């Protein structure tokens, strides 16, 4: 179990700044997702921890060792790539033994460790196959075994599941989590898939334009996003903007929306984020808005409605499909929500 520290890391590629002054730490045995859109710098941050990219400023510490000046091959990391990156000219067993050989482990000892690693990823007996003979999911598990067999200090995952189809991806998520718990490896996982980040991580760090805009437990970020970006990128959100007065936010149409959370000073502009599943059809809730249903999206267990208020604000409503009733398109309904669920966010 090793801790990873990042201190004041900055990196530019030519004139383009990619990371600005990032400081964060990854607790021993934790599973952290770096979540952000492409261009947010999440992959660059991972590659700085791996040692593929040298930061312009700042320091990386793995355990007690400052590795900022240590090249990749001296860092003892386990890495999984988006494309699996298995060596096509080597058998599965030789792929897994590659890192062991570099550490001077050969022969019977290496074979035993390879078998153990194959067993861990449930591919016992696949050692003699060529990577080409395996399915995408199997190849990914070989890549995981190859990364784990060297007993790395940290496990770095660069969108390793994004090439798999949905079913396989869910299976691999479960598998990955099981193995991560078993090995207790500090894991950093880069993804742009918010669902994956929510289900896998102990901690999520949301990146936007080279900065960590918010980090915390998945539920913390989901329930209390601090910025519009975080609210939008992790899950879906409705936004209402207005001016703070009388302990609420006055919208353009005159409605006063109550929030149970601290608001900016009276007179200031404020944005409230409300999750679509926290809205209900209600005429008695403390906060209410009237809106017309523009589009109905039937997605099986969940019904999504796209709505529009009188002044043209677009809203989303998610409802669990409890009894099969579907609200009609074109109907005008009253949406209600609790002040607890109106979260003030920075723009």
């Amino acid at each position, binding site marked *: 179990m090793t801790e990873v520290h990042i201190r004041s890391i900055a990196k530019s590629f030519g004139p383009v700044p990619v990371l600005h002054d990032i400081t964060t730490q990854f607790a021993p045995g934790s599973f952290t997702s770096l979540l952000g859109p492409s261009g947010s710098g999440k992959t660059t941050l991972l590659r700085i921890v*791996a040692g*593929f990219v040298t930061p312009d400023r700042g320091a990386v510490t793995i355990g007690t060792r400052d590795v900022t000046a240590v*090249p*990749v*091959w001296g860092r*003892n*990391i*386990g*890495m999984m*790539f*988006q*494309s*699996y*990156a*298995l*060596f*096509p*000219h080597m058998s599965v067993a030789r792929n897994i033994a*590659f*890192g062991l050989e*570099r*550490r001077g482990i050969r022969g019977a000892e290496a074979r035993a460790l390879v078998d153990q690693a194959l067993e861990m990823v449930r591919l016992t007996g696949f050692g003699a196959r060529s*990577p*080409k003979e395996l399915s*995408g999911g199997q*190849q990914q598990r070989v*890549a995981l075994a*190859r*990364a784990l067999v*060297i007993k790395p200090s940290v496990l*770095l995952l660069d969108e390793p599941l994004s*090439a798999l189809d949905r079913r396989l991806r869910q299976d691999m998520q479960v598998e990955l989590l099981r193995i991560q718990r078993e090995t207790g490896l500090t894991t950093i996982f880069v993804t742009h898939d918010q669902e994956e980040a929510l289900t896998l991580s102990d901690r999520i760090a949301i990146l936007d334009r080279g900065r960590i805009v918010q980090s915390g437990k998945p539920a913390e970020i989901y329930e209390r996003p601090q910025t519009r970006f975080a609210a939008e990128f992790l899950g879906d959100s409705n936004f209402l903007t207005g001016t703070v007065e009388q302990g609420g936010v006055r919208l353009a149409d005159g409605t006063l929306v109550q929030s149970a959370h601290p608001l900016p000073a009276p007179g200031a502009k404020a944005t409230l984020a409300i999750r679509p599943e926290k809205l209900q059809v209600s005429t008695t809730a403390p906060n209410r808005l009237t809106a017309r249903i523009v589009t109905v999206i039937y997605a099986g267990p969940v019904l999504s409605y796209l709505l529009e208020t009188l002044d043209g604000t677009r809203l989303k409503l998610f409802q669990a499909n409890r009894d099969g009733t579907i609200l009609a398109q074109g109907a005008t309904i009253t949406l209600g929500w609790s002040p607890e669920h109106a979260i003030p966010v920075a723009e």
Partner: protein
Amino acid sequence: MRLGHIFLGAVLVFLYTPILVLMAMGFNASPLYQLPFQFSTRWYGDLMGNEGLLTAGFNSIVLGVITALVATTLGTLAALALNRHSFRGRSLLQLLLLPPIAIPWLITGTAMLIFFFWTGIGRGMHALVIGHVALAVPYVVLVVGTGLKTIRTDLEEAAMSLGSTPVHAFFAVTLPLLFPSILGAALFAFAVSLDQFVVSYFLSSPGYVTLPVQIYSAIRKGFTPEINAISTLLLLGSMSVILIFARFARPQSPGASK
């Protein structure tokens, strides 16, 4: 579809008939290529006694092998630099590699001759080696560069994450995957050298002549079926090399994933 077959058939006929005729005439007894065909190995016997042609053939093969070795080494290194590293002037260099392929041999040959005299390099085997290597390198860079593009850089990164230095990662991962391309490039370089007439004609010295140059001067004195005989031997040799290559070095799909 049918038209395509006819077209393909016509191409093959025009390509192979002259070659087959040339081979057959090497086994015809008549020195004046007269028919009817009378089988004889006389010209092969004569060839064994023809010092000039044999020496020239030997020279051509040695020159081809040296050209292949040197051009493949240089070209592979150049392809690695152009595809795997970024440096100032890279795109200009890459661009400059292509025109020599399109410049007529005659112009290249004249230019080389003038340049070699001007610098004191002169003519002879060393000049031929330099000239042929220069002609073959662009092909090697193209062939190896194309091969390199199919090998993902994350394979080397994966090796490094497992503890390989960049040099070890290259020898353990990239080089084995690149080997079919390198072999293909070497054959290409050999063929460029073996085929070369114009530049060889300018750069060969009286004491060191390649086969095409020797054949050319022999033809000027008069055509004999010995030339058919040595051409046949050469053809069979190069064709079997190509066939062996096609059979055993079929490039696998590097990159592992589908």
